């Protein structure tokens, strides 16, 4: 097992009448375990062109279904008008603008929704978007190669 931690710090000196300072750390563990860390992940950086509609960023697989999986996505563009729409199938989560990142658990619910039904999808708007993502997961179902 591995030990992977995710820490967030939210801070502002002027959003409220007093300082906002919030910090939280969690260890990315397998579901149904006390402290067994997730030990599989993948990371990718790519350029997503606009006009292609929604594309699958991460497809759900049976091995990861209804378990503890975590997804980090970052829009690496710098023009503030550039954004991607992040969805789970037909449900829009939100718009990730240039410089924004998100981190969320992912159910990957193949059982109830099928592989496509819980896929994480992205759609570039305005311009080419450079995206980075990292998936920490509890397994992937690999398909046989064409020449196997």
């Amino acid at each position, binding site marked *: 097992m591995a*030990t992977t931690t995710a820490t*967030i*710090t939210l*801070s502002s000196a002027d*959003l409220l009448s007093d300082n906002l300072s919030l910090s939280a750390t969690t260890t990315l563990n397998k579901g149904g375990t006390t402290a067994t860390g997730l030990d599989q992940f993948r990371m990718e950086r790519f350029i997503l062109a606009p006009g292609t509609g929604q594309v699958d960023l991460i497809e759900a697989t049976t091995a990861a279904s209804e378990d503890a999986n975590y997804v980090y996505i970052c829009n690496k563009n710098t023009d503030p008008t550039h954004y991607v729409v992040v969805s*789970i199938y037909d449900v829009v*989560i*939100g*718009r990730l603008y240039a410089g*924004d990142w998100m981190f969320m658990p992912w159910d990957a619910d193949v059982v109830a929704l099928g592989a496509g039904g819980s896929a994480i999808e992205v759609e570039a708007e305005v311009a080419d978007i450079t995206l980075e993502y990292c998936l920490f997961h509890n397994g992937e179902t690999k398909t046989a190669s064409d020449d196997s």
Partner: protein
Amino acid sequence: MATTTATITLSSSDITDNALSISNTATLTTAGTDTGITETTGLARVKTNSGSNTLLLDFGLTGGVAQDITADKSAKVYIKNVNDRGDGTKFVNILIKTREIGRLYGGDWMLIPYSGGDGEDIEYTASDTTETTLEYCVFYE
């Protein structure tokens, strides 16, 4: 305008052969601008003993903590399950428009952009009926 930052650090010394360290800071701005977001719910805490879908953010001011989020902008939602992890079998499912997004186990947190819109409520469902406590904060325009 306000300056609010969100920093994430993902780190592991043993998930790969070499140490993994990802760190990023986002400044929370209004949609398509460099202007800082100026509205927030502040940090709030809710509890439930229900194992059924429970409303966390009701888009459209019809219940829960009053929200005034403009749809399709640059809102961000932070949610944390503040329960202990226990044996790892208890979790909270987070849903948008009744679609399961993912499971927050005890101690887990998430930060997502939030488009809102008609029916795009955020709900949560605890995996059992023992008391579950969540903290959340919304930044919006």
